[in-house]
């Protein structure tokens, strides 16, 4: 059982806001180096100040932002950059499908349209582990996750924008993004069906990484869903 799951199930009477604060704190700290990498990439792409932070806040997705910025910097053009970012973020469709019911049932209309703006790998994983929360409790929990992670994210990106000029081309910060994902992934590996999906996704991702505009990610996720087969797992993502 992941620490997130354990924490969420250990104190069911705790308020949704305090649960969210406790659950997101370790992940928020872990995304700081990745946010700094995105800030450096923004500087490299020639965007700074308020426009850079506004774009970052609107997009709120580090991997897609990096794909977009690196495509622009490499001369891939506006269309290529948008395509790259969109394909990398296509997994958000699956996240939306997976936890859509909690956004639709007993929720105000605004929450169905605005609440999912903060869907990212971290908030999705944490909220999936708090599967007992529904209705108002889920809304308060989710909103707290998004606000806290977003504030830390923007602060980290700001720091990265300041560091951009002094950091070398490659630094230990480069490993921060994928290491965060590895840490999110590890608690799920106790389930055999998920292990099979993860192995297929990793292998397909390596083989398809040469495809343009981040299509390798979509191919890898598609292949792993097929390989996983139907069924349920005891992992926290079953909503």
């Amino acid at each position, binding site marked *: 059982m992941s620490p997130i799951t354990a924490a969420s199930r250990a104190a069911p009477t705790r308020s949704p806001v305090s649960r969210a604060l406790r659950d997101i704190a370790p992940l928020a700290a872990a995304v700081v180096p990745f946010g700094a990498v995105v800030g450096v990439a923004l500087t490299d792409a020639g965007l700074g100040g308020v426009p850079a932070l506004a774009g970052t806040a609107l997009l709120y997705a580090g991997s897609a932002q990096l794909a977009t910025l690196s495509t622009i910097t490499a001369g891939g053009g506006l269309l290529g950059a948008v395509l790259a970012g969109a394909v990398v973020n296509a997994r958000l469709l699956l996240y939306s499908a*997976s936890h859509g019911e909690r956004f639709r049932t007993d929720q105000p209309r605004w929450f169905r349209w605005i609440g999912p703006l903060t869907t990212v790998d971290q908030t999705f994983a944490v909220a999936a582990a708090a599967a007992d929360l529904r209705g108002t409790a889920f809304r308060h929990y989710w909103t707290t996750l998004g606000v806290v992670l977003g504030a830390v994210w923007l602060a980290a990106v700001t720091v990265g924008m300041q560091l951009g000029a002094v950091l070398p081309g490659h630094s230990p910060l480069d*490993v921060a993004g994928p290491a965060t994902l*590895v*840490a999110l992934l590890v608690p799920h590996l106790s389930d055999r069906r998920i292990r099979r*999906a993860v192995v297929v996704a990793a292998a397909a991702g*390596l083989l398809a990484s040469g495809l343009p505009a981040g299509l390798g990610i979509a191919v890898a996720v598609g292949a792993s869903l097929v390989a996983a087969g139907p069924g349920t797992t005891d992992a926290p993502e079953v909503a």
Partner: protein
Amino acid sequence: MDVLLALVCVALVSWVFRVTFTGLLAGDRLPDAVRVRLDVAGPAAFAALVATDLAGEPAPLLLPMALALLAAGVTARLTRSHVAAVAVAAGAWSTFAIL
């Protein structure tokens, strides 16, 4: 200007992805073949992102990155701490990149 425009466009597309099954469509419209596999979507996406990121590393940094991610995985398994995993990975990357 192109950079900001690109970010805004990706943000709009991403918003559509994010609200597709919360506001645009009902979840029960999903094909059964997809619905029964959604529980693996998160881990599969994480693995795909890591793999494609690793494959995109320049050759001299491929091994340090792979070893650093392995160290992150072991650390996450042993300590269950995201912060520790990232810190160990950064340290491992530095060590292996220098070696």
